[in-house]
C-alpha cells in the first residue's frame, strides 16, 4: 500500500483529519481538487464560536465546543481575534411590552449561562448594557433601543486555518496535493483499495493505494459517493455573506431579518461581514453565486438596527454550502448542525468513510473523532491525539508588530497584518526583505501585502495558481478589484513558480473572473466606479 489513508477534500475537516492522522504516525495522502478551503470552510462566517445555540438541546455540546475554541486559540493564537457581539433589545413600539421585557430577561439569563463556559474558550463574561452605554459604544445603532447584552466570540481567517492544517500535515509527512481531483474511488471485493486522481494543472494522472479513504469533500460528497456506489445523504444549505470595505461597526451586532431569522453585522479582520442566508440548494456546487435578492435580504436585515448600512460600500457577496444533515420536513434554520460519520462498509465499500455536517469551530474535535475511527478501521493501537497541543505553523509565538516594524524598516500597518497572517513566521517573511530590499514593495495598502509575502507564500505555502494567493494573503479581495496588486503579484509569483508570460495572463484572467463573480450582485455606488476603472485596465488595457 502507498498510504494508510487517503483524504479527499481540503476543507477544514479534510485538512484537520490529514493533520491528525499524520501526527499519529499514519501515512496520508490529501487530495483537494482546487485549493484549501474553497468550499464551505473558507466561505463560512470565519468564527470559532462556542455553540451557544446548543445550550437548549445539549449542554455537553456547548462545553465541548467552548473547550475546543480554547484549543484552537492555543494552537493558532495569531489567527484568532476577539469579536464582542451586542444583542440589542428592540421593541416594536415606543414602550416595551411585558412580553418583550420577558424575552430580554430570558436572553440575559441565557447569555449569563453561556458565561459559565466562557473560561473554557478564554472569552470574557457577558454584561448588560443600559441604553446610554449601548449608544456610547455603538452610535451607529438606530434610536429607541432598550439596551443590550454583550457576548464574546472568536473570529478567524478560515482559509488560512485550512492551509495551515494542510501545511502542518505535510510537515508531519503527509503527501499534500492541491489542484488534484479524486476522479475515482477504486473498490475490489467490497473494499476500497485506493483512489485515482488527476492533477488539474499538469494533467498528470495517478492511482494511489490505501485501505481507508476518507471523503471530506463537503457539498461534493454526495456526487463522489454516487460514483463510488454509496449514498451520502445531505441537505446542502446556501449561505451568502457580504463584505463591506471597512470595519463598519465597533462590535458585532445581532439583527433580525425580515423573516425573523437571526443574522449579524460584524467587524472581521480589516473589514466587516454581514451574514448570512440559509436556503436549500439543489444546483451544482461548482456553480454557486449570490443573487441580488440575497444581497437585499441581508442589507435589509442589518438596516433594521443599523440604518447607515445603506451607505456602506459592499465590496463582495460570497457564498458557500453548508453540508447539513438530511432531514425531511424541517425549515433550513431548524436543521441540526451536528455532524455524522458515515461508514460505507454495508454498502459494499468497506474502508470508505464520509463526513457530513459539523461546524468550523469544532473542526479539531471532529477530526480527532474521525482519526480515532480511522485508526480503529486500520486495526492500529490507539495513539493519543496531540492536535490541541502542538501549534499550527506560525502559532508558536506572537511577534510584536511594532518591534518587527522597527527592526525591518517596514510600516507597522504591514507588520501587524503579517504577524496576524503568519504569526511567528512573519520574521521569516521579513527576512526576505533583508536579502532583497525591493521586496518591501507594498502591493496592497488595505491588507498590508508586500512583495515579500507573495514570494514567501509562493515558496512555502503550496501556491500553485495566482488565485491561491487570495486565500493565503487576501490578494485582490478588496474594493479596488485587484487594480493595484494583481499584475505585480502575478509577476512575482511567475518568478517563483516559473510561469511564462502566457501563463501569467491566464492566471490573471482566472483570478479576475473569480473576483467578478463575487462583485456582480453588489455593483453600486463607489464599488461600481471601481469596477469601471478596473475593467478599463484589466480588460481594456490588458486585454485579459
Amino acid at each position: 500500500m502507498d498510504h494508510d489513508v487517503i483524504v479527499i477534500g481540503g476543507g477544514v475537516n479534510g485538512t484537520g483529519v490529514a493533520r491528525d492522522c499524520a501526527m499519529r504516525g499514519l501515512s496520508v495522502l490529501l487530495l483537494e481538487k482546487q485549493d484549501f478551503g474553497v468550499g464551505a470552510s473558507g466561505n463560512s462566517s470565519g468564527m470559532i464560536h462556542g455553540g451557544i445555540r446548543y445550550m437548549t438541546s445539549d449542554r455537553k455540546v456547548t462545553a465541548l465546543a467552548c473547550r475546543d475554541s480554547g484549543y484552537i486559540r492555543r494552537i493558532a493564537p495569531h489567527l484568532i481575534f476577539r469579536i464582542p457581539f451586542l444583542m440589542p433589545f428592540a421593541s416594536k413600539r415606543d414602550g416595551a411590552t411585558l412580553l418583550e421585557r420577558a424575552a430580554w430577561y430570558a436572553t440575559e439569563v441565557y447569555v449569563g449561562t453561556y458565561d459559565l463556559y466562557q473560561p473554557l474558550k478564554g472569552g470574557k463574561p457577558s454584561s448588560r448594557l443600559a441604553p446610554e452605554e449601548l449608544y456610547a459604544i455603538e452610535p451607529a445603532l438606530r434610536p429607541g433601543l432598550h439596551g443590550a447584552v454583550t457576548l464574546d466570540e472568536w473570529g478567524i481567517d478560515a482559509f488560512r486555518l485550512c492551509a495551515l492544517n494542510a501545511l502542518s500535515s505535510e510537515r508531519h509527512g503527509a503527501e499534500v496535493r492541491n489542484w488534484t481531483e479524486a476522479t475515482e474511488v477504486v473498490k475490489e471485493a467490497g473494499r476500497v483499495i485506493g483512489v485515482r486522481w488527476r492533477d488539474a494543472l499538469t494533467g498528470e494522472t495517478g492511482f494511489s493505494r490505501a485501505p481507508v479513504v476518507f471523503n471530506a469533500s463537503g457539498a461534493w460528497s454526495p456526487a463522489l459517493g454516487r460514483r463510488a456506489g454509496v449514498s451520502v445523504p445531505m441537505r446542502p444549505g446556501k449561505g451568502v455573506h457580504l463584505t463591506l470595505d471597512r470595519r463598519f461597526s465597533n462590535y458585532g451586532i445581532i439583527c433580525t431579518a425580515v423573516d425573523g431569522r437571526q443574522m449579524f453585522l460584524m467587524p472581521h479582520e480589516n473589514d466587516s461581514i454581514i451574514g448570512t442566508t440559509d436556503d436549500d440548494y439543489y444546483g451544482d456546487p461548482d456553480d454557486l453565486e449570490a443573487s441580488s435578492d440575497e444581497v437585499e435580504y441581508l442589507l435589509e436585515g442589518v438596516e433594521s438596527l443599523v440604518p447607515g448600512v445603506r451607505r456602506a460600500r459592499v465590496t463582495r457577496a460570497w457564498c458557500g454550502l453548508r453540508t447539513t444533515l438530511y432531514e425531511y420536513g424541517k425549515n433550513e434554520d431548524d436543521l441540526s448542525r451536528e455532524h455524522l460519520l458515515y461508514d460505507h462498509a454495508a454498502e459494499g465499500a468497506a474502508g470508505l468513510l464520509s463526513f457530513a455536517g459539523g461546524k468550523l469551530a469544532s473542526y479539531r474535535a471532529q477530526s480527532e473523532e474521525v482519526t480515532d475511527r480511522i485508526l480503529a478501521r486500520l486495526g492500529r493501537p490507539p495513539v493519543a491525539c496531540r492536535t490541541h497541543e502542538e501549534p499550527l505553523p506560525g502559532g508558536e509565538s506572537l511577534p510584536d508588530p511594532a518591534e518587527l516594524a522597527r527592526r525591518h524598516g517596514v510600516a507597522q500597518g504591514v507588520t501587524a497584518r503579517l504577524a496576524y497572517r503568519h504569526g511567528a513566521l512573519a520574521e521569516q517573511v521579513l527576512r526576505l526583505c533583508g536579502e532583497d530590499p525591493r521586496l518591501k514593495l507594498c502591493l496592497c495598502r488595505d491588507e498590508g501585502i508586500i512583495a515579500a509575502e507573495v514570494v514567501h507564500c509562493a515558496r512555502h505555502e503550496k501556491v500553485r495558481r495566482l488565485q491561491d494567493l487570495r486565500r493565503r494573503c487576501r490578494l485582490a479581495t478588496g474594493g479596488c478589484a485587484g487594480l493595484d496588486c494583481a499584475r505585480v503579484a502575478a509577476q512575482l509569483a511567475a518568478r517563483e513558480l516559473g510561469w511564462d508570460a502566457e501563463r501569467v495572463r491566464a492566471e490573471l484572467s482566472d483570478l479576475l473572473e473569480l473576483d467578478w463573480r463575487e462583485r456582480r450582485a453588489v455593483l453600486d455606488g463607489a464599488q461600481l466606479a471601481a469596477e469601471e476603472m478596473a475593467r478599463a485596465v484589466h480588460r481594456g488595457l490588458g486585454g485579459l
Partner: protein
Amino acid sequence: MSARLECEVLVVGGGLAGAMAALAARRSGARVALARRAPGATAVSSGAISSGTDPTELPGASLGARAGVADSARRLAALRPRHPYAVAGERLERLEEALAFAAGELSPVLAPFTGRHRWLPTPYGSFQAAALCQRSMVAADLGEARGRLAVVALRGHMAWDAGMVASAVERAAPLGGPRAEVARLDFPMWEEAALWRPHELAGFLERPGAAEDLGAMLRRSLPSGASAAVFPPVLGLSPGADVASRVAAAAGLPVAETLSDVPSVPGLRLQAALEARLRSAGVEILAGDLREGKGPGAPAACAGREVLAPSWVLASGRFVGGGIVRRGALAEPLLGIPVTAAEAFGDWGAHLARRPAASLTYREGRAPQPLLSAGVACDALFRPLDAHGAVIHERLFAAGAVLGGHDQAADGSGLGLAVFTGYLAGQAAAAGGSLAPAPAASGRPAGMLAPGGGGAGA
C-alpha cells in the same frame, strides 16, 4: 459671491471630453467657462487616446493591413446601433477632423494624428490600438517600429516586468512588428527608490541630469542592433519636462514608454497638458461642485461664483467621473436626465435604470457588460433625450462617457469618443444650437428642464 460670470458656453467636467468641448467652443469664438470638481477619468487613463478598433478584424491580420481610424469607427458604428458613433450618423465623418484638432491643441504631449492606429505595448503583455498617442510613446508603435526593440528592465524596482512587455512585442512580431530583447539597467540605484510609486519615479527623472544619466546607462547596456528602447511608463510627469527626448538624446536612439495602468504617469501628464491648454486658451476654470444647476439659461453656482450660460455641455463622465451614479438605481445626478441601460439579453431603455445590477451584467466577466455602458441617450447632435426620446433642451449637449451605449473596456473607444463628441458638442454649443435642425417634438422653452425628468432619486 463675486460678480456673475456670463458666458456663451458652460462645460461641466474637466476630463478630455470637457476640455475638447471647451477648446472647440473657444475656437469658434465663444466665451467659455468650465466647471470641474476634480480631474476625471482622463488622469487615470492609459495616456493614449483610442477611438476603437474594427470589431470584425481577425486577430491574425497584419498590423499594416488593418483598418484605419475612420474605417474602424464606421465598422464599430455599423455593428453597435446605440454607440454614439452610430447615433452621430453622417457626422461620424468628422472623427478624423476632431482627432487632428485634439492633436493640435495638445501638441506639447500628443504626436500628430496619422489616420492609422498606433499599436502600443502594455505592462500586461498585450498591445492596444491608439488613434493618438503621446510623443513619449511613438517609438514603441509596433506598426511602425522595425528591427529590434530593447525592452528596458529596471532592476531596482519590481513593479514592472520587462518580460511581459517583451511578450507583447513578440506577440505582434508575426503581424509585421519588431522583435524584442530585454535590456537590464541598474536603476533606480537607491534602496528606498525600489518602493517609489510610479509618479515618484517620474518626478525623480525630471530632475536636472537624471534623464541624461538614465540615457547614458541605457547606452552602456544596449543590446547590439537595437532600433529603439521601451521603458515602463514613468518618463516624467510634466508635459514640459520632455524626459523621453532627454533619455533618447543621451542614449543615442529613440526612446518610448509603454501604456500605463493605474496610477498612470502618462494619464497625469495628459491631464496636466489639458489644464495648461485650457488656461492658455482663455477658458475660465471653476474648481468645485456645480450647484443649483437647472440647465442652460438658468444661473448655477460653482466655486463661489454665479455662472450663467445659454448653452451647456455636460461632460461629467460616467461612474469614475461621477456623471452617472448608481445608488440603488442608475441616475444622472446633476440634471436628473434619465439614464438608459441595457439588459444582458436584449431589452434597452431608461426603464431598466432601476433593475438590479446583476441583471444588467453577464456572468462571464470578460464579456462586454451592459451595466458598464449605461449612460445618457442623445440625438445626432449629442443632445440628451428624455424618457420618451425627445430632446430635453435645445442647447444642452453631452459629451464623453456620460453618453451611454458604449463600454470603453469592451470596444476601446473611450478617450477617442471623448475627443469626437467633445469637439462636436463644443462647436454646436458655441453656435448656440443654430447647427441644430428645427426643433423636434419637444417644444419646451429654453431655460427649463422638465421637472423630475425621469432621473431616479439620487
